[in-house]
């Protein structure tokens, strides 16, 4: 349903700032597909290219067989799109908002009411229809935006961080509805910076970092790869001269590299999560006469994981 081949996007002239550096993947019809990546990884740029809002620098992307760079005026009929921060109306009711977008979409008067009622019913928004949108909770607003993107009943939905602002419970409820939407063969591509949200609903996930992408992994396979990640980062707040702290940290098992200083007291250390032990680190530093203020929980560095995966794929 979606095919992306060696897609490149640079902003600016000439070589420009690369946002996407040649990504390729394929999404099958009826699939819920996830794009995982931290902020700035290129997720929104990818969706904007797929909706025809941006032109790719090179490469090709097709949605339902339509080349997004050539037939951009046809994409509105194929794609329903929800931006990361959809427009928030301050003076409209939820029903009025849906009516407004149905009008903008050029929906005939005869079918407008019926279509709105259908999606209001699907998302269970009936009791909120006459509420002002800013007075609705985020979960209701999110469903309203989803209803807007579905008004013209598109076969493909592109959702930019649809779980933003939702609790895990709310996202679980919404995930059920997203799965229902694919039952008729509709394809959904959604983005998120959090694997925990994508794993609940996506069958396959592609990971983006610095504009590069891994292959599309089955979700359990990706979870395993991330679980085995050998790159993580900890922030260590220590009292003492930096050279002494660095020398002491080098003696701590599992520390691979000492990074830059975040502040006068805080150091970044890149670690092997399998062998690094925070208690052991405290002990070693204490024995060296260095006071420890805190050692934060290790964070997996998504970009490093992706680079590792990409290296693994190319080798």
């Amino acid at each position, binding site marked *: 349903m979606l095919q992306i081949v060696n897609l490149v996007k640079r902003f600016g002239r000439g070589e420009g700032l690369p946002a996407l550096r040649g990504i390729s993947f394929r999404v099958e019809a009826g699939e819920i597909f996830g794009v995982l990546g931290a902020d700035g990884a290129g997720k929104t740029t990818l969706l904007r290219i797929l909706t*025809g*809002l941006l032109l790719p620098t090179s490469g090709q992307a097709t949605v339902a067989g339509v080349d997004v760079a050539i037939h*951009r005026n046809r994409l509105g009929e194929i794609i329903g799109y929800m931006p990361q921060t959809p427009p928030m109306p301050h003076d409209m009711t939820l029903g009025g908002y849906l009516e407004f977008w149905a009008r903008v979409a050029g929906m005939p008067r005869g079918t407008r009411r019926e279509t709105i009622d259908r999606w209001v019913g699907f998302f269970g928004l009936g009791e909120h229809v006459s509420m002002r949108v800013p007075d609705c909770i985020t979960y209701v607003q999110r469903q309203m935006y989803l209803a807007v993107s579905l008004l013209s009943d598109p076969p493909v939905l592109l959702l930019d961080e649809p779980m933003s602002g939702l609790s895990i419970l709310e996202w679980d409820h919404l995930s059920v509805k997203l799965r229902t939407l694919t039952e008729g063969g509709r394809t959904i591509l959604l983005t998120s910076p959090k694997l925990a949200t994508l794993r609940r609903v996506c069958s396959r996930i592609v990971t983006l970092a610095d504009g590069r992408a891994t292959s599309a992994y089955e979700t359990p396979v990706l979870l395993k790869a991330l679980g085995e990640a050998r790159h993580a980062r900890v922030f260590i707040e220590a009292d003492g001269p930096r050279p002494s702290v660095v020398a002491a940290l080098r003696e701590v098992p599992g520390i691979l590299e000492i990074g830059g200083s975040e502040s006068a007291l805080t150091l970044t250390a890149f670690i092997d999560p399998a062998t690094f032990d925070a208690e052991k680190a405290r002990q070693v530093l204490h024995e060296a006469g260095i006071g420890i203020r805190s050692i934060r929980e290790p964070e997996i560095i998504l970009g490093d994981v992706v680079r590792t995966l990409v290296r693994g794929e190319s080798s």
Partner: protein
Amino acid sequence: MITLAFAYFRSTVTSVRFLIVSIVVGLIAALSSWRLVAFGFGGSPGSSSVWTLSADGALVALAAGFVPLLLPILPTAAAYYAAKRDAETAFLESALTQPVPRWSLGLGRFAGLALAIALVHVVATTVSVLVIYVGAAGTPLTIGLVTAFVAVAVLIGTVYLALAVWLAVFLRPRHLSLLSVPLWVGMNAIEPTALLMTVQALLIVPEQLLTFGTTWVDFLSVTGLYLGALAPAVPEQLAFVTGRDTVAYAGIPYGAGVWLVLLLFLHLLFLSLFPLGKR
């Protein structure tokens, strides 16, 4: 298209910043008219060309001086606020992914902004002309002339809006606002009548030392386009434009219309090609 036009119209006229700019522009226009009347520009113009010496006719002073200077302000402000709002709220981004042609959405957006600007220009110009009519006895004011003043102000405002929204494709909103000042000065400086008239009025010099003789340069200036569009509706004795028999004059009444069509076409074309801007 109509829904989008109405949405942009409403969000523009209810914007506090746009209202403040509108009030400032309106007040400057009305006070300028009063000043022109009060300091010797009033009264019935003589039969000779006001542009050579006589200095009579506050209407002429208003048309040649203040109105062309004020007209670019609101369109630039409206285009800037709309671009900023679109970027902040993803409104245009959402609209452009709807199953309707992009040119139609672009036209709706443009119409909404143009309508909001027109509303202010209609009020400001009417008040300015009426101030002169009330303040200067014998001003040869007809319904036709007032209508022409208002219509031409709306037309030139719309031309300037088309220019600003087209430039917005290439610029970030803050750069658009920064560019508006040199653009405004530049478009007036090409044909400096408006600037000089303004300076003279501010210095209370009750004589006009320049003649507005139509040349091809007038196709590039706010003053030239404004006077050119207004000229056919102006009675002979007001002598807004000298040299009506020149080749340049033959085309100038249509200059603003030509610019409007051209700039609007470019705006819609670039909006279709680069919906989020070519940056």
